[in-house]
């Protein structure tokens, strides 16, 4: 309990799409080394950052994520030699597209984290969580009209409240 417990009004929901060889192993190292970091990130393990289709990010925002983090190996370290180079180009374009669509680009994070960088991993997760928490809920996207939402069966949590 090195950090102590601080309660916040809003806890963000963050999706992480990470490369299996570097960032996921880095997270693994952070876990086995018993480092503290924010528990808000839901990680999805993928073979390579080149496998991360921007469609995943769009879907994550649609499903109510407040922030999305994409992470992979450093340039030159890709297990498949060149996947992260493609990812770098694609995400440059995608970030500009999201920005043009009016989504705050601070909600989207891209980083290189190697399997040995457990400390960098915890720092980036903490920093990004705080950043998204300051931005607040992704109201714009959440408020987009889904006329069928009201007809869905409510979860037990919602119907109790």
């Amino acid at each position, binding site marked *: 309990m090195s950090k102590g417990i601080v309660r916040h009004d809003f806890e963000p929901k963050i999706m992480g799409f990470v490369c299996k060889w570097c960032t996921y192993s880095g997270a693994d190292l952070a876990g086995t080394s018993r480092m503290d970091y924010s528990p808000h990130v839901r990680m999805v393990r993928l073979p390579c950052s080149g496998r991360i289709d*921007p*469609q995943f990010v*769009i*879907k994550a925002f*649609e499903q109510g994520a407040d922030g999305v983090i994409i992470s992979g190996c450093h*340039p*030159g370290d890709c297990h498949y030699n*060149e996947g992260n*180079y*493609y990812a*770098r*180009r*694609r*995400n*440059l*374009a*995608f*970030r*500009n*597209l*999201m*920005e*043009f*669509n*009016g*989504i*705050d*680009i601070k909600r989207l*994070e*891209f*980083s*290189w984290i190697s399997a040995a960088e457990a400390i960098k991993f915890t720092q*980036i997760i903490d920093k990004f969580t705080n950043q998204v928490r300051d931005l607040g809920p992704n109201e*714009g*996207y959440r408020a*987009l*009209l*889904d*006329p*069928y939402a009201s007809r869905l069966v409510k979860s037990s949590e919602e119907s109790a409240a």
Partner: protein
Amino acid sequence: MIEQIREKARELLESGELDVVIGYAEGSDPTRTTPIFCRKPEDTDKLVLDGRCVNTLPAYLNKRHEYPKKGWKKTGIIGKGCDIRAITQLIAENQLKRDEVYIFGAECEGVVAHPEKWDGSLHEGNCASKCSACDVKIPLDTDFYPGEKPEVDRSGPYMVSAPALATLVKMDDEDRFAFWRDDFDRCFKCYACREVCPHCSCNICITDRTMPSWVDQAAHTKGVFGWHLTRAMHLVGRCTGCGECTRACPVNIQVDLFNQKMKEVIQESFDYKSGYSMEVKPPLITYNTDDQETYIR
């Protein structure tokens, strides 16, 4: 001009060198032209070429359509400058071979923004905005060009032609989001923007796939956002700016603003202009080890 093209098309159809010539003919009313597939030499008399010819015919050369699968060995196509740019891009993406097409080119004076605005002539009031920044009025690569083809300098950067883009990029994120939300509210997902596009190449579009359903098929705003983002992302570095998506939209959403913005970004970041070279690969299927990574932590 069109007489020479008719004559040449007739000659090539008679000799059997071409199986079909795709061009424009008079449409259902005097303001419109319609695409025509000339299979017989006498059909070529119907060909017209003027400011009403808005359609981007290379969409028919795309393999997602049935036409390239009909067994036609060589297709003739009449193209404006921007159409020929689309053909060039299809060749650069290996969707088409250069010797499969025979390109009839002609100098283009611009086209009308929408057939509704046609009043007998082309003037500043009804000309499409894409024509204002056009550098391919003399087309790039042609097999047949009536008269002498002058050399044109096309080394300049990509010029944004939509006036709305400048005001949109100055807005802050929330206003821009509100702008798109109000516009996309009208979209009922007819997919006209996809159907007219010469570069949407997937045999089964990702929105038509339901297992898993990546793009919400219902036409509520959330699904519409997903669709337009997906569409724009799939056209990054490939769109040649024919502007057909905006013209075809029945509810007047300026769909090509996304494409124009991305063309600007691609130009700045990778110094690439789509549709000008058959050899240079589109930017997202290649890489440099020293690409820009200022956004990466």
